[in-house]
């Protein structure tokens, strides 16, 4: 049990008062940056790197990594309370979390999210300690070919997000894909649907879109009535009932597995992870139709998954020394700037630091849990603020959030336009979740398809040469075909006179 010994050694490093303090500071800052819309984990850590120069490297890395995974806790808060996603990964939490808040169950949603986040993050850390080797081999299985097939499976699950009308869900899925086309084509760099606007050359910003579609659209809908209405939601419990615990236990387990597994795959964003966890919950629930009305699983699953993802994504950095995503590249930069080179050699050259940082992940997650649970009582008081004030504050949040993603006033316009679109779509009873899903997966899909075909120089057979890809493709086919079989059986029954369609 060398791993246990190493971990114990790590704890002896991480538990020194200075390093505990660093983990604590990182956790607080991470939570705050998570709450602030627009400034994400990458930008947050980047701004702090220069401040860490004078620090001891172990402490500095502990603080920066704590900040990174801490943002995943903070992002939940605004999603649940205000329907404003604080981070990209928390969009999906809006769907059921905000409904829970409206029913006076915001405290329950936040508690479950915090506990789920803790379990997810800790699970991924345990994986890093005990199974890093095999897991990073799994990460390296994913080339563009496997990646594309996996995304195809993800998109085919879109059907699972349909509410009353399948056609409306599909239309929204296509709408999201169409939005993903704006920008430049991923292989030649040809401008596409940019209307000659330079700001659109990199595509429409994801954060401004979701802030508009969710946050602003909700506000506009409320503005139909008087904005001077008293309060948004009544308050009841903070503590989950036994039923809540039972409902969310399975979701947390599934979220941990999904988040860790997807976090390992280079290139999958944590918003994709949380979305797929949400779909998994819907698929495995006995009442998929109740999702979107405040189901606790719809908060527990995704919130667990995005934390598991954040910690899981650090695994390839430690085992291989390669950054799996731009955010991880920033963390890697922090290592390098302290003269440390992440990767297997780190464990040989600086074992105390490597294991100390890993042990600090466990400590940081505990701290975040302890930090977040008592704060929930304070956060939910936000809902007691008269709506006339709250709505101005939310608007300020939306402006600041969409602006500060890339310091561009143009993004405020984008947010406003999508607010109006979202408002109209809601009135027309279109579901918004499929837009976001395809908007997340669309660009990755087009890119990986083109990369696959560039490798094979145009031959689609490449997708049949990879066993893993074949598995995903077969699963996709099953997902697409099974419901239609059911549909045919049902229409046959209908024809035989049971009930009209």
């Amino acid at each position, binding site marked *: 049990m060398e791993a246990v010994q190493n971990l114990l050694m790590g704890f002896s490093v991480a538990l020194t008062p200075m390093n505990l303090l660093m983990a604590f500071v990182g956790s607080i800052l991470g939570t705050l940056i998570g709450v602030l819309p627009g400034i994400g984990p990458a930008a947050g850590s980047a701004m702090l790197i220069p401040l860490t120069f004078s620090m001891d490297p172990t402490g500095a890395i502990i603080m920066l990594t704590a900040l990174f995974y801490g943002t995943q806790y903070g992002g939940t808060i605004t999603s649940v309370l205000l329907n404003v996603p604080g981070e990209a990964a928390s969009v999906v939490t809006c769907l059921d979390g905000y409904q829970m808040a409206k029913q006076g169950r915001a405290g329950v949603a936040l508690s479950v999210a915090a506990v789920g986040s803790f379990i997810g993050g800790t699970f991924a850390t345990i994986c890093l300690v005990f199974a890093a080797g095999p897991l990073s081999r799994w990460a390296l299985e994913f080339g563009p070919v496997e990646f594309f097939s996996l995304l195809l499976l993800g998109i085919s699950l879109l059907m699972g997000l349909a509410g009353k009308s399948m056609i409306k869900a599909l239309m929204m899925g296509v709408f999201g894909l169409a939005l993903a086309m704006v920008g430049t084509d991923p292989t030649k760099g040809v401008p596409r649907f940019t209307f000659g606007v330079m700001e659109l050359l990199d595509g429409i910003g994801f954060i401004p879109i979701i802030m508009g579609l969710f946050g602003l659209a909700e506000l506009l809908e409320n503005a*139909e009535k008087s904005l001077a209405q008293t309060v948004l939601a009544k308050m009841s419990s903070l503590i989950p009932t036994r039923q809540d615990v039972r409902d969310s236990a399975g979701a947390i387990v599934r979220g941990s597995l999904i988040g860790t597994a997807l976090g390992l795959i280079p290139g999958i964003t944590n918003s994709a992870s949380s979305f797929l966890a949400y779909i998994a919950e819907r698929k495995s629930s006995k009442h998929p139709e109740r999702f979107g009305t405040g189901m606790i699983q719809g908060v527990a699953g995704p919130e667990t998954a995005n934390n598991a993802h954040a910690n899981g994504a650090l695994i390839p950095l430690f085992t291989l020394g390669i950054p799996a995503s731009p955010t991880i590249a920033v963390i890697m930069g922090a290592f390098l700037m302290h003269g440390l080179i992440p990767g297997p050699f780190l464990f040989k050259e600086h074992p105390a630091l490597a294991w100390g940082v890993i042990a600090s992940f466990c400590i940081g997650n505990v701290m975040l849990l302890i930090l977040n649970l008592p704060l929930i009582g304070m956060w939910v008081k936000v809902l007691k603020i008269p*709506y006339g004030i709250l709505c*101005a504050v939310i608007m300020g949040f939306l402006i600041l959030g969409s602006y500060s993603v890339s310091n561009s006033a143009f993004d*405020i316009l984008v947010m406003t336009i999508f607010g109006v679109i979202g408002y109209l779509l809601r009135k027309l009873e279109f579901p918004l979740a499929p837009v976001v899903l395809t908007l997340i997966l669309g660009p990755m899909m087009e890119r990986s*398809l083109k990369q696959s075909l560039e490798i094979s120089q145009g031959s689609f057979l490449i997708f049949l040469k990879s066993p893993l890809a074949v598995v995903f493709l077969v699963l996709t086919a099953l997902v697409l075909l099974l419901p239609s079989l059911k549909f045919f059986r049902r229409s046959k029954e209908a024809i035989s006179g049971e009930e009209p369609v």
Partner: protein
Amino acid sequence: MLRIHQVSALLFMAASGYMMWEAWELEYYTPVGPGAGFFPFWLGVILGAMSLIWLVQLSRPAGKPEEGRFLPDFKGRIQIAATIAALVLTALLLDLLGFQLTMFLFLIFMLLFLGKQPIWMSLIISAIGSVGVFYVFGKFLDVRLPLSSLSLLNKLGL
């Protein structure tokens, strides 16, 4: 209500037409797979087809939307329009007047005129939300929100 749904379906079809037309200008297929215009074109086709199905569904009794007012009452419409206008103005004025002044005016408008809050409350919240946020972002996050590009205001530190 039905009419609005039908118009929306037609709008979606118009959007799909635009996509196909625009995509046609781009390269459709390359020796190594789909070109820049391939996906936009087919997405346009699918969106058009689906909008058509929706339109047909609407005309059948089972697909009729529920009756009810689509647009809110006059007061609601004014509030929504004012909110949107305020946001657009904010976006346009932000770089000109600077963050502090623009945000202050925006918050005052929202609180005082739409939220009907007492004036002292509005002033305090607006000051915190504008000047306070500016300093917090600048001091603690190293993010500088924009200053005014008018030299007069700029000299005042706004």
